Every structure is written in C-alpha cells, then in structure tokens.
C-alpha cells in the first residue's frame, strides 16, 4: 500500500517519483514529533543500527544518530579513525563482522563511490547511503527537497540552480537526480574547472555567469567550496571565487523574484555565501538542519518497518 519499492536507500538516480513522494510525505509526520515535549516514539524499539562512518562527518552523523534515537533504535557508532580499518581490514570483512553481531540497518559514509551499493550486496541489513565519494548523498537531497516544498509549497516547475563545485559534489548529483524526477528545472553554475564537461547529459543547463543564473532562478543551492581544491589549482584564489561566484545581497537584489537560498553546510562565510544572505530572510539553511532529522526519521521508519 505504502512501502518503498526498495530495501535500501543507495541513491536518487532511478528512484521512482512515488518513492520520493512517500518519503517527503512521511517526513511531515515526523516534523510534528520534533515539536513535541517528548521527541521520541517507540517505533524501532529492538532494532540495532550501525553508523559506519569511514569519512569524518559531524553534522550528518549527528542528524542520523538523533533520528535513530528518536525512533528508539539501539545505536552503535563506528568511525574509521578508531577502527580496524586502520589495521588494514577490507570493507567486506568489516561489514561481515558487523553483520554477525545481528544488526538491522547500516548507515554508511565512505570516500569511495559505490561503497553503499557494494555493502548492500554483501550483507542482509538495510543499507542507507550517507555519502559515497563524489557519487550520491541521497538524504541531503531529500531534505533539500523537503525544505523547498515546505517553503515554496511545491517542487515541480521551480528553477533550482546549484552553485559551486559540481565536479566533486555528491550533494549536487543527488539533487540533480531527485529534482529532475520531481519535475523541477535544474541548472548548475560555477567555474569551468569545477563543472563536468558532460553534465548536460543529466538534463541540466549550465551557467558560467552567476548573475545570469540569478536572473532566472527561483532557488539557489549553494555548495561548500572545499578549501583544498584551491591547492589543486582548480580556481586561483578564494577571493577570486568570491568575486565571480559568491552569493551576496547585492547580487540577489538584482533579481525581480524572491530567491530562496539553501546550503548543505558547513558554510564558509563570505566565500561562497555572504554572511548577510546566510542569516537573512531568504535563507532556509537552519530549516534544512531541522528537516534533516525528520527526513532521516522517515527513511529509517519506511525501511526499518517494511516486511
């Protein structure tokens, strides 16, 4: 009647519209729970979830952990620095060992694209991809879409421009897949060195001039500029990046529309996004953080209770 068509959440590439809709609708119920005095329901009591983070992450891991605890699951955290990975164990062996401990779900973040897919083939537990290399980060894209729908009432027909380092961004890829499925018009904007040359094959438009993108967009999803990319000479300096692609109040005020601004965090203030925009009315960045917990609860509930 209602369950998702899949046992795992690996990515939004190819995920049916109905499934995305189910997750977003279910998340609304969990948003209500987050406003209660007792922010906990017994739904996943007796289930054990492992957060398997091979890449450091505070925000995503905290968000998942809160979501899991609020559904009353037992939670085990496993991070790469303090584990057998350092001793040379393969992902497959790590997974098999964990599985022997009778766990029900695994949330995995890994630097290698496809790690979550691989895991889903070798173990029986439900697998949720919390970011695999530059491939996908489906829960981020789902919470972005949820936040957009909450603010603007719809996703279909919106022009969403993703700004920044598209080449290295799993957030961009998952957003492109999800937004296209939901009927949004998607574009990307950034320096030529940070946009894959064949990105149009994913059905998006490309802007290299941020002012042209702003003139046409309803929504800007501004990505974090990884400071280490500068060392690999993909852009000359942070100051130059800011002057060509930084989102500032003056730039937004040139548009006739009220533009909504998202950012997956953490923000480099006054690099990709000026502080007054980040804290301003058009920004829904903090709503994204709150919605992240609700969306992750919805996914855990839908995967964890289906037969």
């Amino acid at each position, binding site marked *: *009647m*209602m*369950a998702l068509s899949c046992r795992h959440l690996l990515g939004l590439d190819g995920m049916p519209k109905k499934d995305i809709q189910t997750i977003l609708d279910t998340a609304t119920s969990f948003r209500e729970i987050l406003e209660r005095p*007792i922010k906990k329901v017994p*739904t996943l009591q007796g289930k054990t979830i492992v957060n398997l983070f091979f890449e450091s992450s505070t925000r995503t891991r905290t968000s998942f952990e809160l979501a899991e605890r609020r*559904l009353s699951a037992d939670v085990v955290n496993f991070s790469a620095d303090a584990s057998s990975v350092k001793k040379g164990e393969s992902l497959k062996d790590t997974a098999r060992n964990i599985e022997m401990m009778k766990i029900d779900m695994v949330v995995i973040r890994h630097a290698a694209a496809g790690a979550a897919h691989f895991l889903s083939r070798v173990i029986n537990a439900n697998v949720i991809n919390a970011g695999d290399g530059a491939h996908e980060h489906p829960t981020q894209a789902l919470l972005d879409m949820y936040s957009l729908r909450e603010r603007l009432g719809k996703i279909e027909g919106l022009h969403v421009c993703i700004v920044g380092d598209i080449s290295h961004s799993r957030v961009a890829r998952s957003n492109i897949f999800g937004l296209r499925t939901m009927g949004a018009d998607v574009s990307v904007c950034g320096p030529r060195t940070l946009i894959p040359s064949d990105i149009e094959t994913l059905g998006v438009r490309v802007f290299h001039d941020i002012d042209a993108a702003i003139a046409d967009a309803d929504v800007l999803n501004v990505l974090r500029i990884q400071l280490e990319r500068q060392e690999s000479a993909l852009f000359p300096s942070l100051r130059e990046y800011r002057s060509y692609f930084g989102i500032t109040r003056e730039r937004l005020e040139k548009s006739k529309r009220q533009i909504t601004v998202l950012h997956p965090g953490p923000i480099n203030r006054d690099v990709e996004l000026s502080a007054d925009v980040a804290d301003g009315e058009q920004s829904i960045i903090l709503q994204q953080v709150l919605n992240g917990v609700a969306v992750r609860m919805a996914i855990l509930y839908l995967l964890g*209770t289906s*037969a």
Partner: protein
Amino acid sequence: MQDKSLLVDEQGFQRTLTRLAHEILELNKGSANIALVGIRTRGDFLARRLARKIQEIEHRELQVGVLDITLYRDDLRGKLNQPLLKGTDIFFDVTGKNIVLVDDVLFTGRTVRAALDALIDLGRPATIQLAVFVDRGHRELPIKADFVGKNCPTSSDEEIRVLMNEVDGEDAVVLVRKGRE
C-alpha cells in the same frame, strides 16, 4: 462467500451518538475541561460528530484532536502492508484535561494501548476515558471502555464494520461473516 447483516441503521446511529454525548457529559459533569481525541481514521470522524452533539447540548466549543497511532503499534514488523502515516493533529495542550479517546470498534485492545502511549507522550492528561461505538469482545489486554455505543458479542470469523457518511456514504454498523471453505 460473505454474509452481511445490519446491526445499526442510520436512525439508530444518530440515537447512539446522542446517548454517548449525554453519557460523556454526565460522567464529566459538563464539558468544561474535556477534549475529544479520535483515533484515525473512523475514530476521528466519530470524535467530530460527538463534539458537535456536545456543542448542541452545552453551547460551548470543544477541542477535538486526531491521533495517528501507527508509530506506537506492536505489530509494525512483519506486516506486509506498511500503513500510511497520516500524522497526529492535536493543537492543544493535553496536560490537565479530561481526554476522551474515541474509536469505532474495541476489539483486542491493542490499538487503545498504543493510543494511550501516544497520548501520554504529548503531556499528562488529568484523566483519559475511552468511548467506542462498538465493543465486539475478544480482548487481549486489560482494557475496558467507559462509554460503549453497542455491545456486539462476535465470533472470531466475524467482522464488525462501522460505516460513516464521511468515508462510506452512509451511517451504519454491519456484521460480516466470512464464509468458511
């Protein structure tokens, strides 16, 4: 094959609702501190109907909420069909109130157990009372209703359906016997 019989017709349905409304008022000595909470889906409609009856008698607005107990069920695992989560809408503080839980059929008592847990997570009501339209027996938990529209002793291969205008196009209670092969 299925065999249906009508237990309560449209007129009987109205009379039962009216009686339940009066009983709720009698036990609570008026409507001053009561609020109705219906359990999705038909309990929600029943709660709204009862609230309207009570308002006609007392000329006072009543608070009505709706509870989704899905997340509190004890049979979520292993169910083939995952129920649609429709959410809880209770826009008032339940603490200190006399809450009347409303459901259509009282059967094993497991739904009511889940509803009690869900309600207590929202606050600390002064009392929680239970109003059901039909009590069909077969309890699996120590739960008893304070207000019962109709007692219908049934066998386990029978099913009670409370039909409501809002979703079914008519007000009635029917007993369905599932034929044995």
